[in-house]
């Protein structure tokens, strides 16, 4: 079974047990590079899949929290090679991993080498927020050669025809951005979110996971009624910054 199908299966398994899948996001090596694997294991024990953020110097789709965590991780010397070697040492976690990275660090690493290393370290799929479908053929091919998926993002601004194309092209799950904006928003989820998520789910054969602006148990439950899973990023990164327990926080959101 290709790795991206295991990711799909993990989300469906959560749904079969009667709850939305929970996909926590952490910035690799933040707040402390030395705690990366322990944090990852803690988060993976509650999450159905884990999204690992690769820090980048110009995170243009991210708000203040992820900007802060990215710059801090970079200043500690975190890079892809370090992340892969940490994952290698950690061994198989049993929870599918997804890497979130802007394109340029992946380009610098080399797509073929990236896909091989990712498969070998338990990564199932990639999310690349500045790589629209029209530009993604090269990376997508390199990933699929290793059985890895490239997850497509859809947004409330995506026209219907494009939505169909993106849902069809996605692997693992479809990432439905909840808001017209950047990550870490605290303005609350939009009123028409249910209709939007229902539309995406109706179009997509894959599970749909919603992300951006999901901060608490109410948000997860709200999103969970209309999507297969919820992605929690900035709120979790803030919990880690404050030195609180990520596991307790994710359990309070309804994690396994």
């Amino acid at each position, binding site marked *: 079974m290709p790795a991206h199908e295991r990711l799909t299966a993990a989300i469906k398994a959560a749904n079969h047990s009667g709850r939305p899948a929970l996909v926590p996001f952490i910035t690799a090596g933040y707040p402390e590079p030395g705690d990366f694997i322990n944090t990852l294991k803690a988060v993976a024990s509650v999450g159905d899949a884990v999204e690992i953020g690769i820090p980048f110097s110009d995170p243009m789709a991210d708000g203040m929290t992820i900007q802060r965590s990215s710059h801090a991780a970079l200043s500690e010397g975190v890079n892809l090679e370090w992340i892969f070697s940490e994952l290698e040492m950690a061994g198989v976690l049993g929870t599918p991993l997804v890497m979130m990275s802007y394109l340029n660090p992946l380009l*610098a690493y080399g797509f073929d080498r990236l896909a091989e290393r990712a498969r070998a370290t338990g990564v199932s799929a990639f999310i690349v927020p500045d790589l629209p479908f029209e530009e993604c053929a090269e990376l997508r091919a390199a990933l699929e050669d290793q059985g890895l998926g490239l997850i497509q993002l859809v947004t409330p601004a995506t026209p219907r025809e494009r939505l169909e194309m993106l849902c069809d092209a996605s692997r693992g799950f479809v990432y439905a951005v909840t808001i017209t*904006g950047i990550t870490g928003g605290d303005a609350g989820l939009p009123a028409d979110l249910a209709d939007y998520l229902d539309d995406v789910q109706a179009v997509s054969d894959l599970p749909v996971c919603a992300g951006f602006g999901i901060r608490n148990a109410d948000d997860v439950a709200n999103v969970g009624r209309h999507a297969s899973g919820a992605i929690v990023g900035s709120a979790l990164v803030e919990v880690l910054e404050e030195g609180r327990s990520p596991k307790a926080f994710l359990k309070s959101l309804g994690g396994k």
Partner: protein
Amino acid sequence: MKSQMGAAEAKALLKAQVNGELPDERGRFGPFGGRYVPETLVPAFEKLEQGVREFLHDAAFQDEFRRELREWVGRPTALSYAPRLSERWGTEVWLKREDLAHTGAHKINNAIGQALLAKRLGAKRVIAETGAGQHGVASAAACARVGLPCSVYMGAVDIERQAPNVDRMTRLGAEVVAVESGDKTLRAAIDEALRKWVSDPDGIYYLLGSAVGAHPYPYLVRELQSVIGEEARQQMLDQAGGLPDATFACVGGGSNAIGLFYPLLGDDMELIGVEAGGTGSGLGQNAATLATGTPGVLQGSYTMILQDDDGQVQETHSISAGLDYSGVGPEHALLQATGRVTYVAASDDEALDALEELCETEGILTALETSHAFAAAREWSQANPGKRVLIGNSGRGDKDMPTLTKYPPRIRKHASA
């Protein structure tokens, strides 16, 4: 993605460029360019591209644009012969005077063009980024002219070193938003403007100031700035009696350079782009993207960028805020790859010397950005006596007075000639 090319491919691409066939339908200048933007912005970029296709070469739009250039910007700008500089350098030196355009630099050509386009696309408000503040001032003025509210994103470092321009923007009715994230200069300002645009892609028009970013911006900005080279070419024929042997322009993102070079690509002359050499050739000491960078994706475009081995974009240094940028327009990356344009760097010190020399010989206080072009032209002149030189005098230096007061006039070493 690749950026190396053989001689035959380079020749074919140059021919396509001269024939006006680039960018292609995917926004590519050969391997460079493209559109690497968040999914939320894809519909906004498609709308912009459609608007560009519909209006940019439409007769009514062009009439209005040309009228604004003539009656409000003050075009055509003069072509000035520089007799005392020519005597000193031993070449025949001509200056294309974009410093005489309204608001003091070439930036206004693009700003008024895009402001007119924003109106046609039904935008409710305009956002812009600025480095030196010239594009911010031009955007503020153009938005006032067409009646659209304008917010300008500006790095906190630049706000400090370009204080007079911050006041000008505010008086012209724009809101200046200080950007405290990232490197607090132009790159951070663009990131922040993109984040703002993502929040309201329908209502906001993003008035990008240089020939950088995702398609169609590099194309749109080139088309709006090409008036510089079109005028200069005709003026050289009329006033100098022939085209120059070499043409110089400074390059940050590269909008004044592409505007001057593009109409001259098919002519038999050297084209030389001059980047900021800062204080040295090490990573972080300069902003010489083409001279010392490598290919990568920054802010929407595959182009040459200053980055480390991990693909992390590096901070830059230049005495001039307008050149202090880690990327460069993708069309310049192609012009370098095909060899049609030579890109060199001038240091902070060389730029300061050149600025002073132009003041003393021709009574023109040029911008620190522009001074880099003069420094390289002076060096070229020493090796090519008797030749004819055209320099794009892209902006005036009044806005640099806060920086220049830190560097008192040097010994008047040029005045004895």
